[in-house]
């Protein structure tokens, strides 16, 4: 089958183009045998979706495009611009093809013909139309902005200086947009982010987070600029559109667009940043200021879904290879929902609009795995539904009218624009599924149950034939030496490990482990002889990947701290030093001595828990019959996924914001006097009694 298709493509390229100058007006003709019927063309932004009725026996179809004048006369040669193959979409009975690469606004006619093997069948009658011009009315302020890339019809990418001017113009002209500088590159280029909401974006990162935002990361590799141009156009559309459906979506959430985290690499046309570091191998380790800025943004704005834009070198693959966060430490629900985003939404919409989305790798290409340091996995481990996006670099056999040129650049960018636009639609339609998956993931990770996989991926099963072709991404199952069946309770770092100078990272800009863990937003407890990082927190799956000596690309070799109690304890329990209860049963009260640390996962406590004056207090996935008192704790307070029968007090804590999420409290929840108001990461608590002051919203 496959070699037949290749032969057919070769035959097609040898065929002469249609006669120059023929008229485009085609009289209604009697259908010939095997002639494609019912061709329709629908114009999108930078692409035109052709659809037609399937011809029985067709092995593929060719799409021909001819530039025409207003009166329909041809102004250039007819060119085969597309080859539709059966592995292109999930529903072969309704073939579609997104033609792209043309200069927006030009007028064309299209014809489609079937081929049986290498034998071409008669062309359809022609359908003509004007393609959409660059988005936005030229007489409407804001809408009339254009990027350097648009102005030059793709001959030039938008420079850094022109990016800043365009970004500032949108910021100034649109109430819906706030441009935030989330950091600076090593060479001091600003890393900007569009924050877009309707009628205005929420004022603070915390307020944005409360809207369950979505994020697009547009340009990690400096020499893969196609997605970035799509982001500029999308930002303009969102800022100035009058479309009611879009405005409705923007009124319910916030769109975060980071056009260029690697501005130095973009300017140098290098893959890496100015030190040569591949930033998509640095999202967990955050040695570089660019990745640190992005990770801090994720910590503060908390996108629930994300896309990460790239370009890909293989020619013989889909238009839009995608891949979910498949690291095995990612919560199942986040992986499943990411797969649903790709296979449920993008495959379905791609089949309607003619774009060929497929799993990264698609038809037999070798793929980079990138593992936990790559953004899709790091974000998955941060409980964000997300996908990698590749734009196929070359036209390849299915888009034969692309050299390494403007045609090719336009197809790539407008395919990215389609994807990001669909991503927004997906997010709006599935917000409750995404937030449910995220809440379950946060509770699952915080419970610290189940094995840890240092490196290894979930399988991506092949989508039912004929889509996506023959080869899913490689299995990449973890080896036995990459699995830890009994997770520790926490990692302990020495003073030197935690605050000591590092040699990784750019000269003069190295950051400590303490700074990096803070950028990730992790809870760290200061104890007498070092620093404890409990696994029972929302990013549990990522913790051992950085802090365990067995990690494939770890940050520091922390000491595994095993649970101190896993069985049953009858009577009162007094905690001094560090106690870690995992799957334990305590029949009696627990009292934490001032300055001591208590970590409780998946345990049952029949009696009050009093952590007054503790160094740190972590209680997850546990059942407590009695009051829980976190008062005057100097370090982290984490209460996630518990069932508590009794009043809960979170009072006068002086550390980072207490995390109170996903608990069921049969009683009042009192929060007052905390230095930082408690947060719930948008994972609601069920509280039967009153929720006071600082906890009114959690």
């Amino acid at each position, binding site marked *: 089958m496959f070699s037949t298709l290749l032969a057919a493509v070769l035959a097609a390229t040898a065929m002469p183009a249609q006669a120059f100058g023929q008229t485009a007006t085609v009289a209604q003709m009697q259908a010939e045998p095997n002639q494609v019927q019912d061709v329709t063309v629908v114009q999108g932004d930078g692409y035109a979706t052709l659809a037609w009725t399937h011809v029985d026996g067709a092995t593929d179809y060719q799409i021909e495009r001819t530039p025409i004048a207003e009166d329909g006369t041809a102004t250039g040669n007819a060119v085969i611009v597309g080859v539709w193959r059966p592995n292109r979409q999930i529903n072969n009975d309704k073939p579609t093809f997104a033609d792209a690469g043309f200069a927006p606004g030009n007028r064309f006619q299209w014809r489609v013909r079937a081929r049986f093997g290498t034998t071409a069948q008669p062309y359809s009658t022609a359908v003509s139309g004007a393609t959409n011009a660059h988005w936005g009315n030229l007489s409407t302020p804001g809408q009339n902005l254009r990027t350097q890339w648009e*102005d*030059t019809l793709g*001959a030039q990418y938008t*420079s850094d200086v022109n990016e800043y*001017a365009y970004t500032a113009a949108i910021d100034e002209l649109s109430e819906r947009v706030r441009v935030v500088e989330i950091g600076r590159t090593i060479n001091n280029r600003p890393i900007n982010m569009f924050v877009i909401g309707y009628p205005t974006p929420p004022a603070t990162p915390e307020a944005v987070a409360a809207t369950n935002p979505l994020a697009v990361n547009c340009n990690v590799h400096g020499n893969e600029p196609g997605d970035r141009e799509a982001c500029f156009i999308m930002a303009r559309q969102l800022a100035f559109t009058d479309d009611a459906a879009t405005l409705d979506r923007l009124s319910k959430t916030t769109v975060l667009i980071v056009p260029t985290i690697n501005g130095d690499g973009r300017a140098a046309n290098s893959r890496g940043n100015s030190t040569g570091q591949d930033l998509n191998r640095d999202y967990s380790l955050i040695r570089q200021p660019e990745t640190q800025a992005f990770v801090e943004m994720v910590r503060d704005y908390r996108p629930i879904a994300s896309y990460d834009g790239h370009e890909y*070198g293989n020619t013989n693959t889909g238009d839009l290879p995608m891949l979910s966060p498949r690291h095995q430490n990612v919560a199942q629900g986040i992986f499943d929902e990411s797969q649903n985003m790709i296979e449920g939404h993008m495959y379905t919409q791609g089949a309607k609009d003619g774009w060929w989305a497929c799993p990264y790798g698609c038809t037999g290409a070798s793929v980079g795995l990138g593992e936990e340091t*790559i953004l899709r996995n790091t974000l998955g481990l941060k409980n964000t539904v997300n996908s990698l996006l590749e734009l196929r670099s070359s036209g390849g056999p299915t888009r034969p009218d692309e050299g390494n040129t403007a045609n090719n650049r336009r197809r790539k960018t407008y395919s990215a624009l389609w994807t990001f636009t669909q991503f927004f639609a997906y997010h709006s339609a599935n917000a409750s599924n995404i937030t449910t998956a995220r809440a379950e993931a946060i509770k699952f990770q915080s419970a610290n149950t189940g094995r840890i996989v240092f490196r290894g991926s979930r399988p991506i099963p092949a989508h039912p034939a004929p889509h996506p072709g023959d080869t899913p991404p490689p299995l990449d199952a973890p080896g036995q030496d990459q699995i830890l069946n009994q997770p520790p309770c926490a990692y302990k770092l020495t003073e030197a490990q935690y605050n000591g100078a590092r040699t990784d990272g750019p000269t003069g800009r190295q950051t400590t482990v303490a700074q990096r863990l803070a950028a990730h937003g992790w809870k760290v407890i200061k104890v007498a002889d070092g620093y404890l990082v409990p696994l029972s927190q929302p990013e549990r799956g990522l913790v051992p990947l950085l802090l365990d000596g067995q990690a494939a690309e770890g940050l520091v070799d922390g000491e595994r701290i095993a649970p101190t109690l896993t069985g049953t304890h009858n009577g009162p329990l007094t905690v001094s030093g560090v106690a870690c209860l995992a799957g334990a049963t305590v029949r009696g009260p627990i009292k934490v001595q001032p300055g001591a640390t208590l970590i409780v996962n998946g345990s049952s406590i029949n009696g009050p828990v009093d952590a007054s004056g503790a160094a740190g207090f972590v209680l997850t996935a546990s059942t407590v019959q009695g009051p829980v008192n976190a008062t005057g704790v100097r370090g982290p307070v984490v209460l996630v996924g518990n069932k508590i029968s009794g009043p809960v007090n979170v009072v006068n804590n002086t550390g980072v914001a207490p995390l109170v999420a996903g608990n069921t409290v049969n009683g009042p929840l009192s929060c007052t006097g905390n230095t930082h108001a408690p947060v719930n990461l948008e994972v609601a608590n069920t509280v039967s009694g009153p929720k006071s002051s600082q906890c009114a919203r959690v």
Partner: protein
Amino acid sequence: MTDTLSRAATPAARRVLAGAALTLLIAVTGCTGADDRDAGGADTATPVAVTVAGPLCDQLPAGDEPGNPASLVSQPADQALQWIPVLTTFEAAVRATGLAAELAGTNGVTILAPTDDAFAAKFSRTNLDELLLHDTDKLRGLLRDHVVTGSLPVAELVAAGTVTTLAGTSLTVTGSGPSARVDDRADTVCADYQVSNARIHVINHVLGTLPTTASDEDDHHS
């Protein structure tokens, strides 16, 4: 890098488009065939006919598109390179090495510019990043292997038979008609761009003596 930041905010694109609005009468007879429409784009009042030749010209801006050959005639070489979309690597290399001044010399130069595909076939991504970001002296040497003194049409290169690069290396040039083979390994694929004080010939192979580092590993993107 700071020079990039301090560059004037007015994009070159806008200037050229403004020039196009003047609808200067510039006959363009490119490789796209008989296109006798008026084409603007150069900010010069002198009518110039530019004929570029080679199989890749079809893939490059032509007619009245931004970046068409006629629009580049008065631009300095480093600026003109930014308009030829298959030369993003070479253009970035010129900026990385500060070679622009040498390209703008009053006596004129001939630039044999390898395509992005040629660079990708020559260097691994890692190696290319090293050259662009760290080994810029080495990269500068490589670029100087691609520059010949004097602004020479491809026909004159062929007539000369042998030319000497800025790096001092000797290149044989053979061929007939509008295209040429350089150093017995590179073909001109779109030759005879005329720019200020220079000719640019797009070639399909990297010259010089650096080792080839490209491999299948380069398929692993994302």
